[in-house]
């Protein structure tokens, strides 16, 4: 918090700081685009076509690029999201019927700040406020999927169309899966204590009354906190991506999950569900797999199944959801991801 307590408190100075920071960011991003070519090929004299050179180039370039993208995206999205809170979402969703409620919940899941560690108090809190279980689940599916890191990195690496498709697909899966689970009358599969929790007093809304300074401080805080937490995953992901980029031939992937393989999406999801990584760690792999010829639908399905169905979150949810509901949850969401994967493959052009 020491850094954030030094932030200037007048509006204009803060504005200038933000503009300067944005400029610096853009400069760094631009430099990263050509720096490694110059350094490795001309500076150190390494052979541009050698696999080792390619792998190192990928590693350095991607590390800086992703770190910059993450910093920018997390900061901007956190500040924007500080205007919204889970408490406010609950107030909006309380007492809503299914159907409309599912749509609202999925949409709110995208814009509400949320982390997986809060899944349990959020679940209990929603139920205690009278939000139907299916609607709650729509929120809990949309939130991790519409992870700002995933969206931002997709945008940075694949362009805004793919990022938008991803968000749309995630929202649709959240709505449909939540609605289906709600229809299955899953109340009997929720741990009883959840229904016995009563809210004492008036819940506060943490989004109210925050000054711009505080929002910027929260944004900076969140960038630091997330980067501190994920950097090992990021390095492993980029390292793996670099190795695949340099040494694993395209044919290996197209043989197993390429455009001609009708089971590609199923393989991707089957691999993705048990894997745990945060969105940032898996993105370099996603980037490399796509460049090696795996179709976009298969690649996105892989990413979604890693991000939406993570083992730590499932372990957390086990505290409130009985095994049958947890199994149903995983099955319905996985089915949705598979459907989306096939749809994207059918609709999108072949990878370039």
């Amino acid at each position, binding site marked *: *918090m020491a850094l*954030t*307590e030094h932030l200037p408190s007048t509006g204009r100075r803060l504005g200038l700081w933000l503009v300067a920071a944005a400029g610096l960011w853009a400069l760094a991003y631009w430099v990263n685009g050509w720096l490694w070519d110059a350094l490795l090929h001309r500076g150190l004299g390494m052979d541009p076509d050698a696999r080792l050179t390619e792998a190192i180039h990928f590693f350095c370039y991607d590390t800086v690029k992703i770190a910059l993208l993450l910093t920018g995206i997390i900061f901007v999205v956190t500040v924007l999201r500080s205007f919204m*809170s*889970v*408490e406010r979402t*609950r107030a909006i969703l309380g007492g809503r019927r299914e159907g409309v409620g599912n749509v609202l919940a999925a949409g709110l899941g995208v814009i509400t*700040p*949320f*982390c997986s*560690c*809060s899944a*349990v*108090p*959020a679940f*209990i*809190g*929603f139920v*205690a406020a009278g939000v139907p279980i299916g609607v709650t689940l729509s929120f809990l599916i949309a939130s991790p999927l519409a992870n700002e890191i995933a969206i931002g990195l997709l945008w940075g690496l694949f362009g805004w169309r793919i990022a938008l498709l991803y968000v749309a697909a995630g929202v649709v899966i959240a709505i449909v899966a939540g609605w289906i689970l709600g229809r299955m009358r899953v109340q009997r599969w929720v741990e009883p*204590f*959840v229904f*016995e*929790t*009563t*809210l*004492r*007093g*008036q*819940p*506060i809304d*943490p989004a109210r009354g925050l000054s711009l300074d505080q929002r910027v401080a*929260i944004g900076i*805080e969140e960038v630091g*906190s997330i980067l501190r937490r994920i950097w090992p995953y990021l390095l492993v992901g980029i390292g793996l991506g670099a190795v695949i980029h340099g040494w694993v031939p395209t044919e290996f992937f197209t043989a197993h999950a390429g455009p001609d393989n009708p089971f590609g999406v199923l393989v991707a999801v089957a691999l993705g569900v048990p894997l745990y990584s945060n969105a940032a760690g898996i993105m370099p792999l996603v980037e490399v797999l796509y460049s090696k010829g795996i179709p976009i639908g298969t690649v996105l399905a892989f990413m979604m199944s890693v991000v939406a169905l993570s083992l730590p979150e499932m372990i957390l949810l086990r*505290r*409130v959801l009985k095994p049958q509901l947890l199994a149903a949850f995983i099955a319905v969401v996985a089915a949705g991801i598979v459907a989306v994967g096939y749809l994207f493959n059918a609709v999108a052009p072949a990878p370039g």
Partner: protein
Amino acid sequence: MIIKILGHGCANCQRLEANTKQALSSLGLAAEVVKVADDADIASYGIMRTPGLVVDEQVLVSGRVPGAEEITALLSAAR
């Protein structure tokens, strides 16, 4: 004054506890600081994002880690 830190013990909760103790010592207050990690209890306070800071059963902050200065100001106002 009874202060409760709501959370499961992740890094944010620990920082909140540390900042709270710092605020208490700067105010010269002796207050009981209790950690609440039970999900049902945490949720019953109405917060949906940990960590949470509760003073005398009033939720003062939720979902973020305020600095020691901010907690000092909040505690002074709460007295």
